[in-house]
């Protein structure tokens, strides 16, 4: 099964109504089942450089490794290591650029990644860009923000309701390019046909309530390119204060890695 026959992928990015330029970056590669979304920060246009470096380096790194052949999955750890290494490499590149060029000083970026392989989605993230999943028409957030707001809630300092009016929504506690090493959250989920995965920058989820994100995904699940456009539109209709990026992946069919005769025979008789 070729991945591009099993997955429908669409993405959109927009500066929003208030910002003059877009510091988000998104890349999607149907052949390797990889989607990377990054939200840059810091300095005049430097955020754009940081997010662009993140998506490009992570994308290229993984494509190269897949081209060389990463071999069969040695258990569930292979994809986790691949993503962790790629994020680490991007982090170091951004860190060095930020520390060697004055115009890039202080730049950094969030990142959220999905890698679809062998009926498993591997999810990695740093910062407050998110991954949601719609399954059986129910929306679920699969990432936990690395933000001061999230920490305050976890520490019980404020309620989840207060979070809506907090001044701290945009203070991230982890980002690529700030330190030489980076702690990445990675998790794996078994995917199911019908699932829709949604990566987004906070320009979406700060502007559009989760209930309305769910409503859009349920109403437009038959048209993924329209879905991403509609979500950007909704964020802008609600004010469009920040750059808005979204990428959606719909799992149309299972995508087992091995499709040889024996594995087909075994799965048919399992």
């Amino acid at each position, binding site marked *: 099964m070729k991945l591009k026959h099993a997955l429908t992928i669409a993405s959109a990015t927009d500066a929003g109504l208030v910002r003059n330029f877009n510091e988000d970056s998104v890349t999607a590669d149907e052949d390797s089942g990889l989607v990377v979304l990054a939200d840059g*920060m810091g300095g005049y246009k430097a955020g754009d450089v940081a997010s662009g470096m993140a998506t490009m380096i992570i994308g290229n790194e993984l494509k190269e490794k897949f081209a060389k052949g990463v071999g069969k999955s040695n258990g569930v750890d292979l994809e986790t290591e691949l993503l962790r290494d790629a994020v680490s490499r991007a982090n170091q590149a951004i860190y060095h650029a930020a520390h060697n060029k004055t115009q890039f000083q202080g730049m950094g970026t969030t990142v959220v990644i999905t890698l679809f392989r062998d009926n498993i989605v591997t999810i990695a993230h740093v910062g407050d860009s998110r991954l949601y999943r719609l399954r059986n028409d129910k929306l679920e957030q699969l990432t936990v923000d690395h933000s001061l707001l999230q920490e305050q809630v976890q520490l019980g300092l404020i309620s989840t309701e207060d979070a809506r009016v907090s001044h701290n929504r*945009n203070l991230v*506690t982890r980002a690529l390019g700030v330190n030489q090493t980076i702690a990445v959250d990675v998790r794996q989920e078994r995917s199911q046909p019908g699932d829709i995965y949604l990566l987004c920058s906070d320009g979406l989820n700060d502007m559009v*309530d*989760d209930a309305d994100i769910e409503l*859009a995904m349920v109403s437009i699940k*038959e048209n993924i390119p329209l879905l991403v456009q509609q979500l950007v539109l909704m964020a802008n209709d609600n004010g469009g204060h920040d750059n808005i990026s979204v990428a959606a992946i719909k799992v149309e069919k299972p995508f087992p890695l091995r499709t040889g005769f024996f594995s087909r025979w075994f799965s048919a008789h399992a």
Partner: protein
Amino acid sequence: MAKLVLSLNGSVIGNYFLEKERFSIGRKPTCDIQINDQGVSKEHVVILTVGNDQILEDLGSTNGTQVNGQDTKRQILQNGDVIEVGRYRVKFVSQKAMPDMDFDKTLMIPAFDRTKLRQEEADKRGPDTESISTAVANARNVKTIFPLGAVHGISGELAGQEIELVRAITALGKPGSSAIISRRPAGYFITHVAGKKHPIVNGKSIGDSPFPLDNLDQLEVGLDKLQFYLK
């Protein structure tokens, strides 16, 4: 109540309370603030009040509108914002619109070095923590300044039924032949989602683009015939 303080060259000329839902500034005598200045368009800018929000909208003015020195077409005003219209300055004052929404992403300067957090800790902390909804309180609903819309089923599965178009999106049709009506600040729009047959409005297929709806438009989605109206 929110107010505007009009000044020219540092001298205050007047105070205006935003008592109306739509408050206009321009060269025309019918504007709520009339400014006789060649750099100001006839209808230069409006401020719409929706709940606690004041939304500034440049009406396609020749010289544009600046808020705090930045060109703007449309934005929600924050307490203390300075709007520039021609040579005049208009200060926006509202205790209900404190700039509590700082959307400039900033990296927190950590009290302790959080990035030294060990990988295992990161893994442990990841999946099991509570997720929170960050959508700002006043961005939860589409701000509309027109009456509520609804569709009435004429024939098909929705015959005799009325659906109020309250939410941002209302889905119509069924799997394989579907459309949405979206509620937007400028009005209602119908958009084709899936199926060979595109929705039909007043006898004409709408194609792939969102199509603005007018009161009493006749809609066809799949086998359902509906009428759109504003309540």
